[in-house]
């Protein structure tokens, strides 16, 4: 006997599961969301069932980006044919057609043998219905040789948008460099430095991986940014879901930040996501940002560096949206809003604590 006579547990669980199925489907409206909230509010039994089912459903999402066991891929044959055609097209389009891959990066050959992480699923690679022509044993020469990684870089203050062979688009921030390797089995981008925003074309047969130092982000069909400035590495997801280091899935609003040996995960509200991505439209957004950090960020975009001369002003907080290409304007705003003097020199801009003589009454 349950605590709610007339609402047997079975019916409640079935209802909760139906809500979850509909919630994630197309055509879910605000009215539907309100109805769900109302249903949840009706009784703690509803909430229990929903929380419990939702917990498992959410965790199952971590499998996104992994490869399905062979018996779950009814369309694998057709997709494989398409892949071969696509791989051939990629090989024809690249002007670097070598039989030995670039030794500076291993990803092309390495990924052919790794593919999607087959070790995770209890299905040996031999059962994958891939024609022998595409499966490459270590040491063998690929029949469709992997093209050498393509390198793209931006100078300080520059920005660049690159269309990749698979339909993905990468927007490079200032002072950034990536190396792109794509073949019939995988798509990999190495972020050597800087910041890049990835809009990944959906290709379930070829997960899209971004590697920044030891961090690996795998996407299926998403939009996200990866940042690597010195030892600071972070990921922000704008759309869809990515998998970080095989360790966890990040969805829209999710962010991962590498701190030493740890990876810290957090959720950002949409406005915050926009803030971290405003560089794509040439704007830098600061909110309660210490002056030192803001200056460091501006300095990525400008060869004329901001130099803080007085330690006392380094932690003053500022906020606002600034054009990344206009460091002088930024310095002027600093003078107007903080007790800071800016001296504009040919090769740098010096920031000092406003002297007593020149300080205006607040």
């Amino acid at each position, binding site marked *: 006997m349950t605590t709610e006579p007339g609402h047997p547990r079975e019916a409640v669980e079935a209802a909760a599961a139906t809500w*979850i199925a509909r919630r994630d489907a197309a055509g879910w409206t605000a009215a539907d969301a309100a109805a769900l909230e109302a249903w949840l509010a009706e009784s*703690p039994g509803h*909430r229990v069932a929903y929380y419990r089912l939702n917990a498992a459903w959410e965790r199952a999402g971590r499998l*996104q980006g*992994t490869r*399905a066991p062979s018996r779950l891929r009814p369309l694998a044959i057709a997709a494989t044919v398409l892949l071969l055609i696509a791989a051939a097209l990629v090989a024809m389009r690249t002007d670097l057609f070598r039989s030995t891959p670039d030794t500076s990066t291993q990803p092309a050959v390495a990924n052919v043998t790794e593919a999607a992480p087959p070790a*995770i699923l*209890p299905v040996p690679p031999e059962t994958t219905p891939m024609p022998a022509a595409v499966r490459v044993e270590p040491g063998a020469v690929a029949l469709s040789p992997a093209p050498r990684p393509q390198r793209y870089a931006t100078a300080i203050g520059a920005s660049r948008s690159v269309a990749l062979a698979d339909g993905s688009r990468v927007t490079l921030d200032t002072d950034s460099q990536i190396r792109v390797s794509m073949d019939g089995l995988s798509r990999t981008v190495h972020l050597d430095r800087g910041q890049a925003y990835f809009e990944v074309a959906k290709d379930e047969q070829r997960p899209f991986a971004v590697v920044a130092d030891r961090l690996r982000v795998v996407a299926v069909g998403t939009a996200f940014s990866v940042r690597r400035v010195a030892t600071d590495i972070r990921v922000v997801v704008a759309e869809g879901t990515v998998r970080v280091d095989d*360790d966890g899935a990040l969805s829209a609003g999710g962010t991962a930040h590498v701190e030493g040996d740890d990876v810290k995960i957090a*959720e950002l509200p949409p406005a915050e996501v926009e803030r971290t991505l405003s560089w794509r439209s040439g704007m830098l957004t600061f909110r309660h940002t210490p002056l030192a950090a803001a200056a460091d960020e501006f300095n990525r975009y400008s060869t004329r560096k901001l130099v803080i001369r007085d330690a006392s002003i380094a932690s003053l907080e500022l906020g606002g949206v600034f054009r990344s290409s206009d460091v002088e304007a930024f310095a002027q705003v600093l003078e107007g809003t903080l007790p800071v003097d800016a001296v504009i020199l040919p090769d740098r801009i010096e920031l000092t604590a406003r002297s007593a003589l020149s300080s205006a009454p607040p």
Partner: protein
Amino acid sequence: MRRHYRSAVPDSVEAWFQREILCHEPALVRFLARQLPGPADVQDVRHDVYVRVLEAAERERPRAARAFLFTVARNILIDRARRNAIVPMDSLEDLESPSVLKDDVTPERQASNREELQRLSRLLQRLPDRCREVVWMRRVENVPQKVIARRLNIAEATVEKHLVRGIRLLADAFHGPERADDD
């Protein structure tokens, strides 16, 4: 090995419930199974226990979640036994003893995420064929229901039926005790 951890954000009751209560389901189910005749009773009482725990937690978060969970479980079993009035007194004493907590493995050991992915994959394999296909396509590959229906040559309503069943079976497998026959 890298550790992933969530930064501190205000904790919703849902998050608390998922993190602090549901993780004890294997132990709870094993405990209930010793006292109840059949699996349906176990699931009914499990649900009742959770409802009482959630109601209390929504008023005030209990400090020791696991202990609170098992206290509630014992109380509900005692109520039930008294209602049925056929259980001899010494069995009730069994329920009142705290030793039931000792032989259960604490779930604090963090499975590596590789292990968790392997486990999730195993759990999905246990679903009935159609359920599994639908759940995989919907949850892992993000295929819309309409497209799933087309690919499997079934009605959209049928896709939802399989999905609903799959969601429930997945939750039972995910939260419940490991089965001896796991591949």
